[in-house]
């Protein structure tokens, strides 16, 4: 069941219907190994990996695709037969337009000039428009994995857990606030805007076009980020003691002192926001079409926990 867009000439923009069928496939793998088992020292590891894919196999009325409406500009999400659900469907940016590109007849969007983003004319009709959108990714990661290692040496123990995912993308709505095409100086901008195009002699790093552009905006890959990451989620180091005696008297049965660090190390590819996994907004902006996305989600907090457990 899905809200399917209808012509507004009916009086309504959408209709709740059985929109189609989807095939989901996947597998999970988990390996636990006790690498070393001695009296004084042990090491065990656990590794898990899961792979999940889905694809749309059929849509209502034998349509080949349904575009998911957005309150912010044109649609950026599509259900297309044979493709993953809610594939990201936008125009591809390919560097920055130079005067030479324009003189050579590069396809333009509206009244673009040198210094504005260069877009890929996917359908080859000589202009950039909504017809040039292509599928550039899908929100679900292909692989999600985790590794845990536990060490014990005498009374010490150490464990750490890595976690990661790969193959998915996010379309970051935070760009609407901080990373707009041709954004000027009246708002905060993302850090990489400092390397924008400033002049033909100072073209920046080829990612962000000139400020104060006036050609308009079309949804494109500038808000697209890989959601790949790996992260050291948790490190715990502990010391255990037993039957502590003071002045010949047993007054502590057992105890443990430990230190835990969370989220202290990791890498992701999301430089347009803080957390590639955050889901704090509805990307479509339309209550009829719910789509999880990031609008300034906070980073995962780095946490240091120091603890003592005592058993009397």
């Amino acid at each position, binding site marked *: 069941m899905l809200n399917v867009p209808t*012509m507004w000439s009916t*009086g309504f923009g959408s209709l709740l219907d059985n929109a189609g069928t989807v095939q989901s496939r996947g597998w999970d793998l988990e390996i636990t190994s006790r690498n070393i088992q001695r009296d004084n020292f042990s090491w065990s590891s656990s590794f898990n990996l899961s792979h999940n894919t889905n694809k749309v196999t059929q849509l209502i009325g034998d349509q080949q695709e349904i*575009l998911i409406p957005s309150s912010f500009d044109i649609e950026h999400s599509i259900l297309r037969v044979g493709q993953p659900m809610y594939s990201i469907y936008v125009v591809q940016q390919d560097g920055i337009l130079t005067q030479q590109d324009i003189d050579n007849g590069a396809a333009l969007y509206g009244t673009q000039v040198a210094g504005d983003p260069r877009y890929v004319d996917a359908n080859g009709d000589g202009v950039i428009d*909504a017809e040039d959108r292509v599928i550039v990714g899908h929100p679900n990661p292909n692989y999600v994995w985790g590794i845990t290692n536990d060490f014990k040496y005498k009374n010490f123990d150490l464990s750490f857990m890595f976690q990661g995912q790969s193959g998915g993308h996010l379309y970051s709505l935070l760009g609407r606030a901080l990373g*707009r095409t041709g954004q000027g100086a*009246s708002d905060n901008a993302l850090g990489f805007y400092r390397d924008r195009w400033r002049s033909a002699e100072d073209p920046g790093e080829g990612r962000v076009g000139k400020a104060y552009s006036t*050609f*308009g905006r*079309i949804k494109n890959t500038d808000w697209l980020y890989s959601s790949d990451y790996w992260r050291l989620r948790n490190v715990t180091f502990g010391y255990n003691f037993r039957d502590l005696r003071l002045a010949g008297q047993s007054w502590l049965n057992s105890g443990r002192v430990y230190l835990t660090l969370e989220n202290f190390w990791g890498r992701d590819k999301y430089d347009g926001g803080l957390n590639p996994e955050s889901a704090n907004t509805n990307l479509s902006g339309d209550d009829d079409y719910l789509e999880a996305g990031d609008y300034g989600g906070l980073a995962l907090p780095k946490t240091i926990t120091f603890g003592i457990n005592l058993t009397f």
Partner: protein
Amino acid sequence: MKKILYLALSLNLLSACDMDLDQQPISQASSDTYFQTVDDFNQGLNAVYSSLRGYPDRLMNLSETRSDNLHAISDGGVRDWEGINSFHRTIASNPYVEEAWETNFNGIFRANNYLEQLAEKGESIILDEEIRRRMEGQARFLRAFYYFDLIRYFGSVPLIDRVVDATEAKAIPRSPVSEVYNLIMEDVNTAISYLPAPSDYTLEDKGRANKYSAKMLLGLVYMTRSGPDLGIGGAGLNTNEWDKAVEQFNDIITSNEFALLPSYSAIFDYDNERNEEVIFNIEYASGANPIVGSTFPWVLVPDIWFVEVLGLPTQGGLTIRPVAADLLRAYETEDVRRSFSIQEGYSYGNVVETRSFVKKFVDIAKVPTTSRFDWPINYIVYRYTDLLMLKAECVLNGAPGSTDTDVDAVVNAVRERAGLTTTLTGVTKAQLLEERRREFIGEGTRWFDLIRSGTVETTMQAWIETEDTGGQMRDFQMEYVLYPVPQSEMNTAPGLYDQNPGY
């Protein structure tokens, strides 16, 4: 025995459902079940009216902001209105453009549904024929109103005069403007014959469409049709029906139901709603739940003025949409309309804003503190001054009338009310247009005035050249007269609609 029972049960389950599933929902009313009493028909009619709620905001966003009254080009961000004023060709998914299409078609659906139910059940439920005719007249007026709004912004649109389902709608293309006009005129003429004068309504119904609202709409339709055909599929058809418009306007004048108010500010006074200027207004109530107040007073007002300068709650007008320097220059010093309508800059702390904005509809003492969507002021859609000046325009275009009494006298009366003492004689079309610009600033008439008078291209181009010193606008193109069909409509049924030229 048990086995037989199970068998019987399972057979029963397997064979139970041999009728089509076609049930009325029990928990919610539907069109088919809702209309049972006269009051239901009243409620249903109010629902047709409710699509008017955003009409004034739309006028400000798509008409006022697009015209030479405001120089609301990019301030370095991407406010949704920036592409409207600086004529981006890429506004097919602009939220204001989408809203205009969507809300009007939603209103048309409501009117169609209402008219179908009224035709089917009206006679058996609403026994008073006069009441029934008033209901039909209002629904028809509103359907015409919504269609007229659509063709002024978009040109040709799909012509839907009944309830259609999703499959049917995907096969209904845009109809030529002339065919849409046929439905509009048929509806308005029915409304004129079915609706009473405002004085025949009881006090609580005074805000409803009346005979003269419909005549005003019809006059405006004739004038719009008479505007030049600009070759882009727009609302002007060069029909030369100025005389037919005057006929309608004369009926309104001789009804003696309306008059010019002696003071300009009194027209917009929060304590003077439904005054003698008002031929048709959109009525808003504040303090209701759910909220049904108005929002148009702050649409053109920067939020910071409310918050930092006046110390009032945020309203949502975001950044400033400056009044064009050219329009400020057009006011003579003693013109009271300038100071009433325009806030010329403001300052707080170290911040000094020198640009001006339209504050015409704001009464500082009436700013709602609970919700910015709940302003307690009606919007005057058709006012008597507008009618007199429109009639003057028809006369200058050759319709019967006297240039002395119908043109000069009207313009001078309007000017005198504004505090201007010099009397004009032999008022030209250009002078009339300029006077309208000063009088109706913020009321969203300017853009349509320019289109109807055929001066949109030369006026806008000359204005861009003098006003846009920062070079953020480009040359005016006739195609900008119409807005693009929303991209979402183009995508839902690819190939069904042709996009307007230039987009």
